[in-house]
């Protein structure tokens, strides 16, 4: 008893571990129109689609291998693909029905990936094996999260179990919950905050206590006042205020980028080339912690996803809850179809999302937005000559110099690119956004990274 009191005192004296009242200063960033048109519209569940195609590559890392075969009957929540790889999360079916084909699909990055095609029976029979996991310590949490198939739901899709499985000598003390949702259009996380605030707080508390962390900071951009107030109320009701707080962040993009968020919430910097654990933090998306709370309660793995459907080409922008593998064309149809021909279709937000080459493509776990841009919105202006205005330098949250990096990429200068630390780029898009000459700077930086990786 005495020792724990002493420990508490020591922790309280440790100024670094106080809950922040105001966000800390971050570098760079840009002001992007929020366009959160779908914020105050309740999410809608899509009727079970006739067919789903589940890609074996749901996130960055290794692809899964199907463990079902053609003709197999599957149920909701049934494990259908797994991998022994560390950087991987298993895949479960979000529908009940029959596997009609094990096919392939070309990903937007050009890779060919196996898929499981399922024809649904519309009954949505739940898998009988589903039961809530028993989680009492960190190892069990790690195992349960891996089993749940959870990947980071913020958009990058990093398997969550890996984030939780940090080595004890990293001295991790802080759980940072990412509720910034700084991408324009996207409101999927915001709807989670408005619809399941209790789950968010419960999940945060559960992860914090199970991992033995000292504090949790929920970072939310200031453009979501209702969510901030609601979560604050629940923290007070549950008297968790001594270890947990909601931090109102500035509204500049990219406050939701992991390293920027850690700086804003804790004033710590993640060392170059290292992970948040090296700055004593675990970062989880706000929908991810909410999912962990639900999973611990019900045992239902990650089989569906809330997706913000918006953009100038869609008739009825809204948040749609759809099983993983639902075809994009089905979702567009559910949102009233198109009011103008879509010219560009994005998976994710407009700042970091991937442009798709076809609507004949299924949604994956890490999807949080589908943006259908019409002709005018998608209009690509040809780049002109760089005028060295320095806007990209001022905008870069990682303090890089895109203006000089672009020339080194053209020269394929590996040493020069290393000197300018091109590998620190997180491709947030601030440079390209602010470039008056419309230079494709993010593309240059990506090329620079691949040049450094391949060494030529």
């Amino acid at each position, binding site marked *: 008893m005495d020792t724990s009191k002493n420990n508490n005192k020591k922790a309280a004296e440790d100024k670094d571990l106080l809950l922040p009242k105001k966000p800390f200063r971050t570098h760079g960033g840009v002001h992007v129109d929020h366009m959160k048109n779908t914020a105050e519209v309740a999410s809608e569940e899509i009727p079970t689609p006739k067919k789903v195609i589940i890609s074996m590559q749901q996130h960055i890392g290794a692809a899964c291998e199907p463990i079902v075969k053609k003709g197999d009957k599957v149920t909701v929540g049934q494990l259908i693909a797994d991998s022994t790889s560390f950087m991987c999360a298993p895949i479960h079916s979000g529908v009940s029905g029959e596997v009609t084909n094990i096919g392939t699909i070309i990903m937007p990055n050009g890779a060919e990936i196996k898929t499981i095609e399922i024809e649904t029976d519309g009954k949505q029979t739940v898998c009988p094996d589903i039961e809530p996991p028993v989680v009492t310590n960190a190892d069990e949490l790690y195992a349960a999260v891996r089993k749940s198939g959870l990947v980071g739901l913020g958009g990058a899709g990093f398997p969550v179990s890996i984030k939780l499985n940090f080595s004890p000598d990293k001295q991790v003390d802080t759980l940072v919950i990412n509720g910034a949702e700084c991408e324009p259009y996207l409101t999927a996380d915001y709807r989670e905050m408005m619809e399941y605030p209790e789950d968010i707080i419960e999940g945060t508390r559960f992860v914090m206590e199970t991992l033995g962390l000292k504090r949790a900071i929920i970072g939310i951009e200031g453009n979501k006042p209702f969510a901030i107030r609601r979560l604050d109320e629940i923290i007070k009701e549950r008297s968790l205020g001594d270890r947990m707080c909601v931090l109102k962040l500035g509204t500049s993009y990219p406050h939701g980028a992991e390293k920027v968020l850690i700086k804003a919430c804790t004033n710590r910097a993640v060392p170059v080339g290292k992970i948040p654990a090296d700055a004593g933090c675990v970062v989880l998306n706000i929908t991810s912690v909410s999912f962990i709370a639900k999973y611990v309660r019900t045992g239902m793995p990650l089989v569906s996803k809330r997706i913000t459907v918006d953009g100038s080409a869609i008739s009825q922008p809204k948040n749609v809850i759809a099983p993983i593998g639902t075809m994009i064309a089905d979702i567009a149809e559910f949102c009233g179809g198109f009011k103008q021909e879509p010219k*560009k279709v994005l998976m994710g937000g407009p700042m970091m999302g991937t*442009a798709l080459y076809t*609507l004949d493509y299924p949604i994956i776990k890490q999807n949080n937005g589908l943006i259908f841009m019409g002709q005018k919105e998608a209009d*690509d202006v040809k780049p002109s000559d760089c005028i060295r205005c320095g806007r990209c330098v001022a905008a870069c949250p990682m303090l890089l110099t895109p203006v000089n990096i672009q020339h080194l990429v053209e020269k394929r200068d590996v040493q020069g690119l290393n000197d300018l630390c091109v590998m620190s780029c997180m491709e947030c898009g601030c440079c390209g956004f602010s470039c*008056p000459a419309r230079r494709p700077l993010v*593309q240059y930086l990506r090329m620079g990274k691949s040049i450094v990786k391949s060494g030529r």
Partner: protein
Amino acid sequence: MENNTPTMLSVSSSPHRHSGENTPYIMQDVLIALVPAAIMSVVYFGWRSAMLIGLCTGTCVLTEYVCRRIMKRRQTISDFSAAVTGVLLAFNLPPTLNPVFAVLGSIFAIAVVKQMFGGIGMNFVNPALAARIFLLISFPSHMSKWSLPFFYLSDNATTDVVSTATPLAQIASDNMTTPMIDLFIGLHGGCLGETCALALLLGGMYLLLRKVITPHIPIAFIGTVAVIALIAGQNPITHVLSGGVMLGAIFMATDYTTCPVNKTGRVIYGIGCGIITMTIRLFGSLPEGVSYSIVLMNILTPHIEALTQSSPFGSEVKSSGK
């Protein structure tokens, strides 16, 4: 579902949104910021001023057009950068200059300094200043004939004979006679656009508000000039308001292409401009040193950038685990 699929989706690298800023807008903003000073120069120096501004701008744009045509490159006159060079060059000429020299200077600025090095964004020194120095060295007597404001109103004045000592020449000869308020509103001899500090400050405020320039260079430049003047025991306000300091610090030194891209670099560059300007003014044989200081610092820009290269976020911390 087939009929839902459009014929062709466009694919590109992220980001898929843009701030909406573009090069022509920026250059137009610079031109707008130059308007007050242009108006004042016409008020003070009459039709010759309007003629020189028009002539330089026209020649610069035409030269750019011809150069791009000859080189078979994409036409760039619509980005207004050649027009900005033209106006700035005119601002740096004495009001009574023979138009032939103005045309010569404009062609030199665009053809030699800008296009030969690759066009917008590639020139290593400010084209307008390089052209001014070219004229100054080639035709020194024509380039240092100063006339008083409103010379065109006096009856017996033919423009070739009127000449006056600029405030800087007055400082150099220890015979300062221009009152401070005249310095501020521009009632003294000098180049076309550099005399009216008030108009230049207005333009500078506009550029700052529109975020076209950052305050680093003007403040570092003007501050350094004032501090050195103070140390040298001369009136800092006179030094700041006379000669080309205002025009140089606000419009010429802040030229994107030839100044460092990062904040620290910009401060060092501004201080460097101030030091060279004051060194020339105090110790050199020339009364004015703004053009030389900016051009010399232009040449140093790549080195300043290399020295002030920021290390990426997170490079100074050690990881908490061992």
